[in-house]
């Protein structure tokens, strides 16, 4: 198993043969796809495609479980925002008025469109985080000729996040060893405890800053150095023909999407069979 940003992945996954630059390009471009799609079923297809990618990459789908509460809370907020908090619009078609609050079909439709845009965007991020290793981000940045000091800062941040989590665990254990426990306590109590955790957490990080700096300087690091770095990390990743093909497919897919949307009016609300069907059902139900 190899550690990725969001968990572990089996050694046999094909994703290790994909150049890190392709993964970053995938994140940046495919995250944009849903923004140009209003027809819900197409974004649903994109969701299925992303799940398919997760499966063939041998990512445990348990990872998605972490995001189910987030997806539900976002869905609820979007739905409430568009329906209950959506205001009064006499020009829209009412599908029902629970507790006297008019619920419009157009608002439900818009909520669905927005929600089905958000889900693939989240999944693209999940795919990226669960199939990418920390060093691959550095490799992708270095391949893009981003200055070493920037890529190194990002890499160190990721490392620091792991350390902070570890420090947090240690501080919490130390607090618990002295009889503090937040289990079953009120929210204000938990917040007070959280403040108490933050002070040692910051203090530890300050100490680490000094140690880290010494370690870097002792190993000859200077961000003003004129020495040309050989970028060893890039020698560990080769950009092969399939990487070029993947980039081409991603970019061509995006270009095709834009052309279909703005040249031929595809992927629009009017183009959605599902929304047509749902609107018909809800409105006919309301009329009955």
């Amino acid at each position: 198993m190899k550690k990725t940003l969001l968990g572990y992945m089996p050694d046999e996954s094909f994703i290790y043969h994909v150049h890190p630059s392709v993964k970053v390009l995938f994140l940046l471009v495919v995250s944009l796809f849903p923004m140009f799609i209003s027809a819900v079923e197409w974004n649903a297809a994109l969701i299925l495609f992303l799940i398919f990618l997760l499966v063939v990459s041998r990512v445990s789908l348990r990872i998605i479980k972490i995001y189910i509460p987030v997806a539900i809370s976002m869905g609820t907020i979007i739905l409430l925002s568009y329906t209950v908090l959506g205001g009064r619009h006499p020009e829209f078609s009412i599908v029902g008025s629970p507790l006297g609050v008019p619920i419009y079909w157009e608002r439900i439709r818009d909520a669905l469109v927005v929600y089905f845009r958000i889900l693939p965007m989240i999944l693209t991020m999940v795919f990226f985080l669960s199939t990418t290793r920390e060093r691959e981000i550095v490799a992708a940045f270095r391949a893009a000729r981003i200055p070493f000091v920037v890529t190194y800062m990002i890499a160190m941040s990721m490392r620091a996040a792991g350390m902070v989590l570890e420090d947090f665990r240690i501080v919490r254990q130390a607090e618990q060893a002295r009889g503090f426990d937040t289990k079953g306590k009120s929210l204000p109590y938990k917040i007070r405890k959280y403040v108490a955790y933050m002070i040692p957490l910051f203090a530890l990080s300050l100490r680490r800053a000094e140690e880290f700096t010494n370690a870097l300087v002792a190993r000859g690091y200077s961000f003003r150095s004129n020495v040309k770095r050989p970028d060893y990390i890039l020698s560990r990743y080769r950009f092969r023909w399939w990487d070029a093909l993947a980039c081409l497919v991603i970019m061509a897919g995006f270009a095709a999407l834009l052309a279909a949307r703005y040249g031929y009016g595809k992927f629009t609300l009017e183009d959605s069979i599902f929304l047509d069907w749902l609107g018909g059902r809800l409105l006919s139900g309301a009329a009955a």
Partner: protein
Amino acid sequence: MSETNKEDSVWTVLEGERRSVGVIHIVITALLIGIGFVVGAFGSISFPLGFGVNFFWTGIAVQQIGPIWFGGWGIIAGVIFPFFSNAIAGTPFYVSLAYIPANFVQAFLPAFAMKKLNCDPRLKKGRDYLVLFVAMVVSSAFGAIYSPLVVLKGFGLLTVESLPLFMWGWFGGNVVAGVVFNFVLLKALSGVVIKTPAFVKKWWS
């Protein structure tokens, strides 16, 4: 503000004092991003309103204290870490990207006010508390107006009618968490931080 006060100020570079940007500033930026990532994600996951907006955002402590202690390095961290903490909490990539101006103002303004008005980060006088509090309120108000209005509405994630909920959520989530954390942390740790080579008197060293 009297001149005598200014000479005593922690922000004043003493005659003959050598200060320069060092590796430690790069390191401290990275560490702040790391801490912000963890505590910010904690806030985003524990108290979510949605799309990275929380009704108690713990990340504000790192975002506003970092720049007070470490100047521009803290601001860089304060702008970058929400991007990571939001990502892990399920906020889409481009929504996080669009939050950058709000995060910049929230990080920059309290540090700017403390430096400009010659306030001591050790919070020695009532005035130091007041300036920091006002700066926290104003910067969070900017974030609260900008983000839901420009970002969430711009992305079509919310209706106009539901914006106040998100604006108050953002504002309250930041100010309440800021009040809870910022004063305590500054009071407890500024004395130590000032003595370290990482402390920044101007903006970069």
